[in-house]
């Protein structure tokens, strides 16, 4: 039998169900890999004992022929901004370095109920604010394809962990591209569902009208399997979609599927990215897809719109970190105001402070009309533009990012860093489902990806198109250093 980490999540689950491999062997194999490949720095914490106990129980269940869950024996990692009861949720921040989750996030509970083996929690940009995982207050994570490069962010730990096959499924959260951009930069599949498809209960809030939990995995089928488990209505999240659970069956062609190309919006693509993008479109055409140009020029204002609205929401959400009820409290604070001011000074990193200030500024008296209210109207125009585009096509294709993974420390200008998300943010603006799929490599042999966007609620078809493209293109690989 091949190495356990050469299986996809779905294949490994099936091997377990057929009795070819024990859950305990799987848990040991991946826990060992996490330890052996510490150079990636993907994990903030691991739960060896917890995972082995779960695996033993699962093996007993299987031996007794009792029913097991859909994620049985799949090694899973959680982005460390979602709660696993009894364990620490740091959110990549000094503020929460000792915060012990008093309950399970709904997505995490569903993974546990479906017998996923939770191995540990992965690194992220502090409070999920960043595109490189360099903003983690603990340490940066590295890209398994080249350790000098960033893995993307903010779910960089999850993307790197899946790419190096330290687990076969990881959760991420996506506010402006935080699942899809790192997935693209690390050469794995990353899926952001329709807004509200996965409950946000137990996810540390960043921008509440943007945040969405989703999976990162080696294949589209794995991501679809995770969605069958996580895509459930939840009474603890008022924005959770109250719709029947969906079944994700995956056909293999794109016959008569109409693919939209936002040609004008993409006209300044770098040649290498452009070539890769149009090669992917050709592959889709060879599978029967028809193409049509769509007008989404308004999306050139996505970054400005996003950084006004998402930081406004973040400044409100992060007001709860006041040093009173949980998190750290400054020892030198003598008054209540000092508790707030000093605790937030030492607890938050620089990027978080910047975004809280920016968000507060755009909401403050005298600036709210020019920034916040203006951006809310532009958001309406962008949703209108997508609605119009989707009246002419079934899916719209974007690159994942303007470049492949860049070297750590090389992007220092804040606007340049924010532009990393120019092709991912539009999905969050309009609450659309979008998947990032490997589409080849750049001249440095760093992975590239394309994204498939679908209309709101069309999660299943987005993954079906992605599966068909993936089967025909087969660009996914394991980075050479982590093959053995």
């Amino acid at each position: 039998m091949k190495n356990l980490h050469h299986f996809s999540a779905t294949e490994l689950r099936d091997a377990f169900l057929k009795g070819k491999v024990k859950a305990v062997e799987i848990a040991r194999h991946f826990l060992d890999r996490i330890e052996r490949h510490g150079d990636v720095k993907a994990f903030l914490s691991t739960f060896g004992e917890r995972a082995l106990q779960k695996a033993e129980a699962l093996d007993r269940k299987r031996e007794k022929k009792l029913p097991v869950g859909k994620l049985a024996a799949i090694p899973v990692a959680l982005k460390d901004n979602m709660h696993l009861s009894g364990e620490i949720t740091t959110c990549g921040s000094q503020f929460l370095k000792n915060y012990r989750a008093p309950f399970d996030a709904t997505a995490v509970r569903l993974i546990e109920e479906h017998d996923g083996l939770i191995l540990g929690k992965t690194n992220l940009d502090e409070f999920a604010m960043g595109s490189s995982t360099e903003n983690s207050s603990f340490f940066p994570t590295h890209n398994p394809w080249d350790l000098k490069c960033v893995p993307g962010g903010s779910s960089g730990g999850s993307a790197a962990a899946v790419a190096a096959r330290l687990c076969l499924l990881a959760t991420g959260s996506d506010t402006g591209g935080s699942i899809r951009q790192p997935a693209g930069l690390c050469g794995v599949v990353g899926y952001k569902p329709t807004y509200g498809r996965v409950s946000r209960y137990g996810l540390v809030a960043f921008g509440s009208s943007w945040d969405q939990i989703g999976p990162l995995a080696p294949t589209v089928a794995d991501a679809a399997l995770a969605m069958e488990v996580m895509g459930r209505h939840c009474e603890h999240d008022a924005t959770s979609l109250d719709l029947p659970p969906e079944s994700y069956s995956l056909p293999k062609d794109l016959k008569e599927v109409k693919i939209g190309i936002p040609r004008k919006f993409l006209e300044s693509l770098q040649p290498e990215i452009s070539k890769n993008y149009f090669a992917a479109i050709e592959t889709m055409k060879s599978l029967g897809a028809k193409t049509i140009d769509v007008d989404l020029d308004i999306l050139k204002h996505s970054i400005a719109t996003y950084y006004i609205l998402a930081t406004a929401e973040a400044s409100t959400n992060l007001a709860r970190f006041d040093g009173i009820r949980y998190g750290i409290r400054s020892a030198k604070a003598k008054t209540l105001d000092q508790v707030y001011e000093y605790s937030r000074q030492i607890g938050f990193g620089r990027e978080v402070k910047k975004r809280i200030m920016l968000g507060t500024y755009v909401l403050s008296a005298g600036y709210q009309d020019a920034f916040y209210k203006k951006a809310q109207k532009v958001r309406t125009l962008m949703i209108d533009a997508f609605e119009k585009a989707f009246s002419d096509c079934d899916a719209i294709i974007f690159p994942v990012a303007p470049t492949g993974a860049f070297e750590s420390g090389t992007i220092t200008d804040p606007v340049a860093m924010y532009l990393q998300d120019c092709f991912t943010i539009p999905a969050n603006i309009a609450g659309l489902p979008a998947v990032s799929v490997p589409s080849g490599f750049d001249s440095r042999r760093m992975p590239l990806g394309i994204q498939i966007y679908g209309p709101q609620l069309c999660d299943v078809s987005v993954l079906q198109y992605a599966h068909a493209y993936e089967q025909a293109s087969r660009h996914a690989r394991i980075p050479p250093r982590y093959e053995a």
Partner: protein
Amino acid sequence: MEFDRKSLEHLKKLCRIECSEEEEADILTSLQKVLGHMGQLKEVNTEGVPSCNHVLRGMLRNQMRDDEVKNLLPRDKFLGNAPDQIGGMVRVPPVLKG
């Protein structure tokens, strides 16, 4: 109006965040750059366009439930994360004096 050191001082108070001088200089430059970029929205014509209040159109409806009391978070679990506590409550510095 330009975003300057005075705006930053005001903003620090609104946000209840203290910063070191070095941090302040960096934050000031960054915010100036980012706000400059955001200024581009001026060129978009939004006359008569409604604000976006929810991204999912057609899915907007009230989420009602009975207002039942449940014990979702026991006191000791909650206090386990409190930075300071006294007699089963969170302790804070004195708010009223004398």
